[in-house]
């Protein structure tokens, strides 16, 4: 597949207009993730209420793939249940590691299917996953924080 095909219009649009970007209050956990070999970085916050992902906000520097992927991710997970959001994380991660041999499910992944082509460029897979991994980590930390609070309440 050609590199031009990897740079789907959707990706470039999200790169230009990052959705939900900028750090917001309130939040349950904040994480900082880095792709050390290239220097892409993202600071990401999540706010969970009950089992719902109420907000995801972020501030990042990086290439079109990492920025667009984070933007698309926020569109997908905000307003979902934590379980649904983590299932999406898993589905997207699997797609990225498929080397392009999996047919992405547009019904669940929506705009994120545009990244299917990235799976053919192993060096860029990390870029596409940066924001998603940060999200998963932040959810885990936030949930742990909630559990901690709960157990402290006891």
């Amino acid at each position: 597949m050609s590199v031009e095909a990897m740079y789907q219009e959707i990706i470039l649009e999200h790169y230009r207009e990052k959705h939900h970007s900028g750090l917001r209050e309130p939040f349950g956990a904040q994480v900082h993730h880095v792709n050390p070999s290239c220097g892409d970085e993202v600071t990401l916050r999540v706010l969970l209420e009950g089992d719902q992902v109420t907000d995801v906000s972020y501030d990042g520097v990086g290439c079109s793939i990492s920025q667009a992927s984070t933007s698309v991710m926020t569109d997908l997970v905000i307003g979902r249940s934590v379980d649904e959001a983590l299932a999406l994380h898993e589905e997207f991660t699997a797609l990225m590691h498929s080397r392009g041999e999996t047919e992405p499910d547009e019904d669940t992944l929506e705009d994120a299917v545009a990244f299917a082509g990235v799976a053919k460029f192993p060096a860029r897979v990390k870029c596409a996953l940066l924001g998603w991994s940060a999200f998963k980590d932040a959810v885990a930390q936030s949930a742990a924080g909630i559990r901690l609070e709960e157990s402290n309440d006891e």
Partner: protein
Amino acid sequence: MPEAGYDLAALRADFPILERRVGDHPLAYLDSANTSQKPRQVVEAIAAHYLEHNANVARAMHVLGAEATESFEAARAAVAGFIGADRPEEIVFTKNASEALNLAAHSLGARLGPGDEIVVSVMEHHSNIVPWQLLAQRTGATLRWFDITAEGRLDLERAAAENLINERTAIVSLTWVSNVLGTVNPVARIAAQAHAVGATVVVDASQGVPQLPTRVADLGADLIAFTGHKMLGPTGIGVLWGRYDLLATLPPFLGGGEMIEVVTMQGSTYAPPPHRFEAGTPPIAQAVGLGAAVGYLRGVGMDAIAAHEHELTGYLLGRLAEIEGLRVLGPTEAVDRGGAVAFTLATRDGLDIHPHDVMQLLDSRGVAVRGGHHCARPLHDRLGIQSSTRASVYLYTAPAEIDALAEGLGYVRTFFEGHSFEGHR
């Protein structure tokens, strides 16, 4: 004569160096515990990498960079699979086993202080002694050690009597297979004991992984070190395996490119394992070569290799037993015993023939063995000798090479008996 569970002649044909001659004699390479020979397949994998796919890894993301990174990480996965590691990220590539052991000492040592004890054994290779001595000096911790029995096995009774492993024990670092005595140590049992008192267990598997099917879980260790060049791989690469959750808590050792997360002039954070421990450009082509070596070993089958080694060791011990004046240093039967056999040799009138001289005369007949203390001087001290001659076998060793050794040793005795010594007595 023992027969290999594989076509030995065909296998030997993969190792062109084995066809070399020394003067009029065919080479009998019996120094594999020192370094192994390399099959064509490994050498070709390295050459192909350089000539077709060479680039830096991770940081280079163009086509060549992606290819090199993929080969490099595939090698990591191959090594992980070879020793039954849970995940490739448990494999840290170092330059050799020595660096791996230094890394272990340095990173584990960040937690040590006076009163803590480090336990090794008197049969260790210098590479599993000196790093711990340096650590003890730095931290004020105390270095203690297992002694050996007359048969050349760890003296577990004495260790128990001395309460060697106790609440103060922070680290136990032991060799799996001795490079001199050949002893296979009960590392899992000792690891369990060490874990019971909260100590961390390091195993020097430099002589084990090349010879024995390895499952890290069965060894019971937390960290394991071994080296590429003794297992058909290239020089310039070693391995530190660690339980991932342990590695994740350890501080870095060498600082530099690619082991970092964020560097500022004010301070830095570090990447997760394994990269945290791999500063700078890693041994890329060497990893590719080691991956090929592991593939070769798997192709032959580690069970078959261990069986061949076992057979040959028995044969070697038997042939050596026939030689008068020869004393084997380790266990004299091929039970819990690897394929390195060290010995001393004396003339009929009791003069010790120095291992250098033994080695030199054998060499003149094409038989390559090692003479010296084999980087285990404390063990030789303990045995009351200065040095020894060591023969060691591997998957490509043929019984005829052992015969050449046995005949050569007879010649060595005759040579030294025939000269001055006798006349002067």
